[in-house]
C-alpha cells in the first residue's frame, strides 16, 4: 500500500500515532491492542474465585453434617450400652446423654417407644414395630408427650428446653438444618411398664446443630 506524504501527515495529525501504528486498519496502540484480551483474563479470574468460594462453602456444609452425624453416633453409644431400657436405668442415661450433647455442641432428643403384646388382650394387636403415618402424630419418634400406651413415646431425654414447652409437643424436623435421626431396637418392659419381662421397643436418637 502506498501512502502519500500528505495522507501520512493527516493521519499523524488526527491520531498522534507513532511509526509502529501508522497505516494499520483497526490498530489502536500498545495498550489498546491488548485491551480485548483483558476480558477473558478477568472472566477467568472471576470464575476461579467464585468456584473456590463455592467449593469452600460446600466442604464446610459437608463437614458440619459429618460432625453432627459423629455426635449422633457417640450419643447413641451411651443409650444403647445395655440391650434394654427401664424407667430406672433411663434416669442415669438421661443425665449422661444431656452432658455429652452439651460437650458436642448439639441438641439431642432421644425417645423410647414400646410395642408390647398383651396376652390378656390379644385382639388389640401389638408385638410388632409400626411406623407412624405423619411426623407430628403421637406415634412419631419426634413426639415428646409421654404415655404408657403402646406405640406412644414412653420415655424421652432432651437438652433443648424450648421443646418442652412446644405445643403440640413435637419437633418439626423440616425447620432444623443437618438433622440426623438414628433408630435402634431395644428390649423394654412388656406388657406393662413395670413388668419383669421384656418385649419389643425402639430407641430413636435425634440430633441437630445448635
Amino acid at each position, binding site marked *: 500500500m502506498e501512502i502519500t506524504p500528505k495522507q501520512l501527515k493527516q493521519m499523524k495529525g488526527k491520531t498522534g500515532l507513532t511509526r509502529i501504528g501508522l497505516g494499520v486498519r483497526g490498530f489502536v496502540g500498545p495498550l489498546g*491492542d491488548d485491551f480485548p484480551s483483558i476480558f*477473558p483474563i478477568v472472566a477467568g479470574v472471576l470464575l476461579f474465585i467464585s468456584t473456590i468460594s463455592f467449593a469452600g462453602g460446600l466442604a464446610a456444609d459437608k463437614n458440619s453434617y459429618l460432625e453432627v452425624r459423629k455426635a449422633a*453416633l457417640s450419643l447413641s453409644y451411651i443409650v*444403647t450400652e445395655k440391650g434394654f431400657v427401664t424407667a430406672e436405668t433411663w434416669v442415669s442415661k438421661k443425665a449422661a446423654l444431656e452432658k455429652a450433647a452439651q460437650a458436642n455442641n448439639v441438641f439431642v432428643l432421644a425417645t423410647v417407644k414400646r410395642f408390647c*403384646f398383651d396376652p390378656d388382650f*390379644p385382639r388389640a394387636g401389638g*408385638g410388632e414395630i409400626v411406623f407412624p403415618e405423619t411426623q407430628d402424630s403421637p406415634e412419631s419418634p419426634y413426639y415428646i408427650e409421654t404415655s404408657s400406651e403402646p406405640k406412644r413415646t414412653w420415655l424421652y431425654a432432651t437438652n433443648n428446653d424450648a421443646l418442652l414447652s412446644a405445643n403440640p409437643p413435637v419437633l418439626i424436623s423440616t425447620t432444623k438444618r443437618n438433622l440426623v435421626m438414628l433408630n435402634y431396637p431395644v428390649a423394654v418392659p412388656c406388657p406393662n411398664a413395670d413388668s419383669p419381662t421384656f418385649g419389643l421397643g425402639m430407641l430413636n436418637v435425634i440430633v441437630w446443630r445448635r
Partner: protein
Amino acid sequence: MALIEKKSARVKARVRTMNRTPNRTLSRERSRAQAAIFDGITFLLMVGFSCALVYSVVTNYGESMDNALNSFYELNYLQSAVKSLYYMNLQQLSNVASDEDSLAPAYTVDPPLNDATLGCEQFRSHTGSVTVLDLLKKDLSDIPDDPSSEEVVLDDLFSGRTGEVKAPGRQALRCALKELMKPLVLAGYDYYAEVVCPRCNPSYKAIPFGGADGMGGGGARVTSNEALANFDSEKGKSVDPDGGCAFVQTPDGGSYRALSMSVPLRISLGTSCEGVSCQRDYILRVCIWQTR
C-alpha cells in the same frame, strides 16, 4: 523553512521505508495483537479446566467418611438387635406374622410366621420369663446317639437319648429377627442369622438347619433373602457348610460389603454327659448387606 524541509524529508524517508517493506511490518504488528487475545483465551480455558477439576473433587468430598459412619451405625444397630435377643420374652413374639405386602416376601417361606402351630403363634402359651436365646440354646443341646459324631442340628427339636422334645429355638430366632430387623429390611438391606461351631471339624462350620414336622427336608433358614431361604434355588444350594454370611461375600453371593456381628453362645449339658462333651461353645452370627 529549513526545519520544515527537514521534517518533510524525514516523512518522505519513512514513507519510502514503509512502501519498501510494508507487509512484513504490518503483519508483525497484527500478529502481536492476535497473540494477546490467544493468550487470554488459553488462560480462560485453563481456568475452566481447573474449575471442572475442583467441582469433581468437591462433589466426592466426605464420601469415604460418610461410608465409614454408615458402617458404624449398621454395626451398632446389629449389636442392639442381638443384645435384645438376650432379654426378649417369647410370649411377646406371638403376634409376629408374615407380611401380606411385597416388601418382605421371604417371610412367607415355609413355614409362614403366622402358622398357628409352627409359626410365632405357638409362643402364646409360653408363660414365664423364657427368652429367645434360652430356647435357641435348648434347640442346640442335641445329644446324638453316636457320641463321636457330635451332630447338632437347628431343627426346633431337642434330640436326646430318650427321644425328641419340641424346642422351637430356630423359630423363635426367626420371629424375633423379623421384627428387630424390620427397619433395615425396609431400607433395602437383607440379613442372615446362623450358629457356627468354632471348634468343630471343619472349624467354624455352620450348624445345619434341619427339617421338622411339615417343613420338608431343609427346614427354614433365618434370613430375609428369598433366594437364600429357598433350599432348591441355585444360591440356596450353595450356602452350606461355611454358612450364609460367608457365602454372601463370595462372587456368587453378590455382596462384598456384608457386615456381621458375632456373640458367644455357651451351652452346658450338665455334669454327666455319657461320652459327649458337657460344654459346647458356639457363636451366633448375624450379618447384613445392602441389596437395594
